[in-house]
């Protein structure tokens, strides 16, 4: 999904004297190599010994910045930066992908946006990953420079975990 414009880069008619902001935006546009509307290329899931792995494959190189919550949750926010090499464009994109449930990996949906205000960095790529139930996970960037790995453990409700008698 392509949005018309981004908050920090409004259309020309939106401001009276817009060149200072244009400069900021143009910097982004020239360097950045865009973020294509098709930024999330694929989602792969697999399991081994009860551990699930989700690999989010992007169509541009990405740099991992941050995520929250740290390792447990139903809603996971991930901040990346695209380090792309594509044709410049001012369009921010928003997309959505949904994965069916697999054994040990609950169904999840990924909503992503490249809107400039989703994170305070140049070329942000912000992901909202919503699982169908709370999960216990760890994140790390993929070895290929354009993927993100999420490893999922069978989640025990923390309140139900056994305690030593």
């Amino acid at each position: 999904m392509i949005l018309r414009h981004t908050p920090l880069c409004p259309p020309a008619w939106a401001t009276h004297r817009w060149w200072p902001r244009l400069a900021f935006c143009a910097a982004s546009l020239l360097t950045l190599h865009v973020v294509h509307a098709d930024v999330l290329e694929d989602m792969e899931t697999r399991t081994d010994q009860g551990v699930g792995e989700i690999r989010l494959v992007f169509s541009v190189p990405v740099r991992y910045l941050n995520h929250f919550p740290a390792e447990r949750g139903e809603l996971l926010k991930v901040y990346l930066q695209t380090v792309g090499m594509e044709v410049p464009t001012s369009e921010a994109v928003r997309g959505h992908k949904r994965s069916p449930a697999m054994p040990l990996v609950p169904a999840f949906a990924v909503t992503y946006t490249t809107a400039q205000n989703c994170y305070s960095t140049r070329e942000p790529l912000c992901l909202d990953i919503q699982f169908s139930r709370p999960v216990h996970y760890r994140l790390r960037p993929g070895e290929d420079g354009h993927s993100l790995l999420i490893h999922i453990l069978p989640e025990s409700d923390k309140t139900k975990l056994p305690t030593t008698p």
Partner: protein
Amino acid sequence: MRKTFLLWLMLTLSWSGSMAAQTGAASTKDPDDSRYAITLLSSFDPIPDTMFPRNIPDHVYRTEASIFGRTIYFVRLGFYATAGEAEVAKDRMLARYPAALVTRVAPDEYLKITGGKPKATETGVAKVTPKPVLPSPPATPRASTTSISLPATPPVPVVTPAVPLPPVAAAPGVPTSKPEAAAAPTASTTTQTAVVPVPAPAAKPVSALEQEAGTFMEQARDALMHNDNVAALQILDKLLRLPPNSYSQDAQELIGLAHERQGQKTSALREYTLYLRLYPEGLGADRVRQRIVALESPPARVELKKERAETNVASVRGSLSQNYYYGQSQVDSTTTVLGPAVTSSLTSNDQSALYTNLDLHGHYSSGNWDNRFVIRDTYTASFLSNVDSTNRLYSAYYEMNNKVDEFSGRFGRQSGTSGGILGQFEGFALGYNFLPKWRINVVAGKPVELYTVHYSKLFWGASLDFGLFAEHWNGNVYYIQQTVDGIADRQAIGAEVRYFDPRGSALLYVDYDTLFSSLNIATFQATWLSSPTTTWNTLLDHRLAPTLMTSNALFNTSTLSTIPIPPVTPTPGQAGSISYWLQNVTEAQLRQVAVDSTPTFDTYVLGVSHNINSTWQIGGDVKRYNLSAIPSSPTLTTNLKTGATYMYTVQAITNGLIRSRDLSVLSLSYLDGATYQGETLAFTHRMLFQDHWTLDLALSYYLQQDDTQSNIIGFDTHIVQFSSNRIAPLIRLGYLRGKNMSIEAELGIEQNRAHSVDANITTGTSATSDTNTARHYFMLGYRWNF
């Protein structure tokens, strides 16, 4: 119990016979020389003693494994001969261990825990009393629901009579390999003792259907044990004609086995295939796949690549979505120049469009080949007379992978992500792993242009991927060459080196253009976990923006026009054509203009985030940007050169701010540019309620104040001041209908106010301008996942 054991033995011999017939009994490794355990706890970190179960008998153990490159720590309860036994035992553990699951234990883990004579300090053996273990019969899938009685409490080891060891195992968990048998301290090469759960009465009554099905199943087993395959087929057929019940899955597998034993290979394959269609997941499916492989594969193939062979699998998935956007804007301005204010108002409908997105993935796996096709397309139907409808085909490619020889190819419209490829292209990319850690790639094609262009580009390149070395390092080196209208456009070499560690990662990337003898990109980025709760990230990036190419000269046609004598005045089509300019300037002149038209962009970032607790995270970063001047174009330089711009940001993220399933983000930034200062505030809040609804609220605010500028225009001195602010609230509602359909609606407002004063201090006059811009828009759409 005896019957069950006999059935197990019969299945074992049946399976071993079929395998031995194709592979030779002595040369084939047993595919199922593993056991089952119940994984009670899993953790990314070592499991502390306080979490270790102490009220369960001593066959609970700790272990760890490297899975997907990450060390995972487990507490397991074992061992069980069959998945069925383990499954039922697991069910009894769920109340205390809700994440308990049945795990097929690798042979080395089994040996380590039971018979490997581990040292006291060896990993994974804490609290383990090594015991000789042999799985208990039966081996029939899910037969445990009736023929195996299960303990009401966690299983207690019981020694069973010695069991003859068949030459090749048939069902999961049946031990046959000599090393395994030898490793058991008290077992001989032909007999072993077993630890099995204590039998217990059946837990609950079954329905009439279940009773009937159970009777059929018992009869079918009897028939199979007496090698009366015809009778077994008839009984199983009756069972399978019943409504679905708890025996249906096992019956589907056994009817395949009965056909197989009758020598009816085609019928056996048909039934096994039906089994996979009905029950594609789980251990039974794995077992059936192995039987299919054994039936289908010639001996040599089984010996060479048995573990890689698979049944044919085909799938198609994707999504179709349509979103309608409508936007209306209004601009009100008031200008005062030496007299009464002049006001104007303009209202326009700036957006009315339907976006249709198709995302289609097809996958077909046959033997050692994986085949995939991908189509992604967006069609924008504009309902405004002054805006054209457009179609963008983002991907349309076919991909093949050979899993044995490890080569792959992708053909069609695709994205390039390494090897110096700039974005999307149409062409092919081939790769071959000629050594375990070395892969060579060749790529060629035509870049995809998003807009109409008047030139033609082609490229080819080769790259070499290496790694993983020393567990942490990988990367690639590449060469790429691109032409535009027949002349060299870009010719570069590059390298990418990556480092990965559980605590962080780093990337160094360099792209050097040999045509221009110029460094295109040099970037270093790293993320580092300084403590379990604190993450640092940094970026040092220097690059030509955009990447230096001969065609960059087209950005500056005004300069190009002045080179010929006399200067030329091209049409818009000619101006965008390298071929045209080559009629008027030399290649060297084109490249010089390209160099002079390409600024550099430097970025330095240092950021940190810290998890205060499980519900709060705070973070911040400092960034410095600098876009250089463009030598050949004073006009462009004036407009684009930023000078050093600093941006300071703090951010807080929390969940449970209003409701337990909410997630909120607040960030504040301060920009300090060469000629202006800006402040931004952004707040987003996502709420999940009930099981199907999501609500997103967002608010962003931007305030900018330019430095006061003093300009001399003619003989007058002007003092110019400018300020603006912008606020944009948004609300988005989503509803998930069923598993595959979602509906989404969005409503947003963007309000912008700008104020400027131009005071002529020489004449004592001034001009002011106020502009208010408001835009309202909404979106309504749906998405169907299939």
